[in-house]
């Protein structure tokens, strides 16, 4: 099933572990905060996306199920 990345911008403190683990879908702005690819994740990236979600020290990154 399709999923996309979602970040809680309040919990996010810019650790950037997510961008490190999923550079294909996450880049950083000039202040170190994640810019998420808004499109549904291709299946090939799903494992890496889950790793990125687990790696976030503040649990700010989520995967949102798409209808």
């Amino acid at each position, binding site marked *: 099933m399709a999923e996309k990345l979602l970040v*809680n*911008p*309040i*919990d*996010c*403190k*810019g650790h950037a572990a997510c961008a490190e683990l999923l550079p294909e879908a996450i880049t950083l*702005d*000039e*202040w*170190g*905060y994640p*810019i998420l690819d808004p499109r549904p994740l291709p299946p090939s990236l799903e494992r890496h996306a889950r790793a990125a979600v687990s790696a976030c020290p503040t649990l700010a990154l989520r995967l949102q199920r798409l209808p």
Partner: protein
Amino acid sequence: MTAATDSTQSDAITGLPRLLPPPEEKDRKQDLDAHLERHGMLPYRERDGVLIADIETAGLTGRGGGAFPLHRKLQAVRDAADKRRRTPKVVANGAESEPASGKDATLLWLSPHLVLDGLQLAAQAVAADAVILYTHANRKHDVGERLREAINQRRLRSIDRIPVELAEAPARFLAGQETALLNHLAGRAAVPTFMPPRITERGLNDVPTLVQNVETLAHLALIARKGPRWFRSVGTDEEPGSMLTTMRRQDGQPKVAEVPLGIPLKALTGDLPAGSAVLIGGYHGTWVSGSDAQRLTMANSSLKEAQARVGAGVVITLPSDRCGLVETARVVRYLALESAGQCGPCFNALPRIAASLAEVAGGRFRKGTLDNIERWSGLAAGRGACHHPDGTTRFVSSALRTFASEIERHRGGRCSATSHEPFLPIPKATALDEQDWI
């Protein structure tokens, strides 16, 4: 501030005003007797939820700025309550944290009973068991005292089925944002939280919560009495009904009037000579040139051509002796200070944008300053927990667009302002100093 009402609007043909007392009653004390005489008793329905169909037919949308269809929100709260087996709560939002807006304060001062009726009716529509009226302390008139009196009069006559709790909003720009409001009511700081989940699912005390602007509730109170067709007899087919607007012109004094949706903007702005500009919506709104404004009406279907929205009905005509860039820079400084400071993109971008705008406003700004503003705006929009960065950057972009020729003048070290007196109202950015809140 409760602004002067524009009493030229009372009209047997349009049937306005609806929400505000007619001009003939300007000097009459608007107490419960006056309200009952004019509007009759609050008409509860035989069953909960029955009012929603009438609201759908009426096409009433939120008057707090979002213009979301009320019937959908009511239904969402009912559905969430059924699904989760929780009893909802209703909050009437009278915080009016937009400094340029005075319509809610005016409505609460002149027609508190319509708002209170609407609050009870909304509660019945969603089968709520608690209602709260959230207002902002007002410097000129003690709105809190007026409301306590009104609630007491109603209690003596057993009008309200659910006792109304009054709560006071702190003097912050974001205090009226719906999640910030709920945080404040829960005893926390009045700053936003990230959604999902939506507050219609999980709000105050984790129950489905309906938050509605006080003006929306006042319209609800009249639709319940007079029906949806009456409501639709003014306005446009797509955007029916009347709305309250806060206007400012040359003298900077706010005037609140009730107008039909779709009224030509010209009727609200006054004369628009060449080089003039209008701010539509408030500090998260849009600057539009005077020449564009001539063709527009107060309806989203018209305003969207100019990338503007009706919002909370603020319409400000910039006097020809002021500089739009200077005024914008003043406002954006305030907006940056009012960031909740929770989200990286917002608290990084907004102060930088404010500083760069101050440079542009001051004349002879550095190369790259405009590009920086554009880049930072692009980074901030949509990346916060609330719409503060989105609204602020929309306001900034519209200023750079509308005042493009003024920017060129500033580049050459000139400014077309002949008065340096501040025009747009800005509260002192501290909660301690409510005296200066307008």
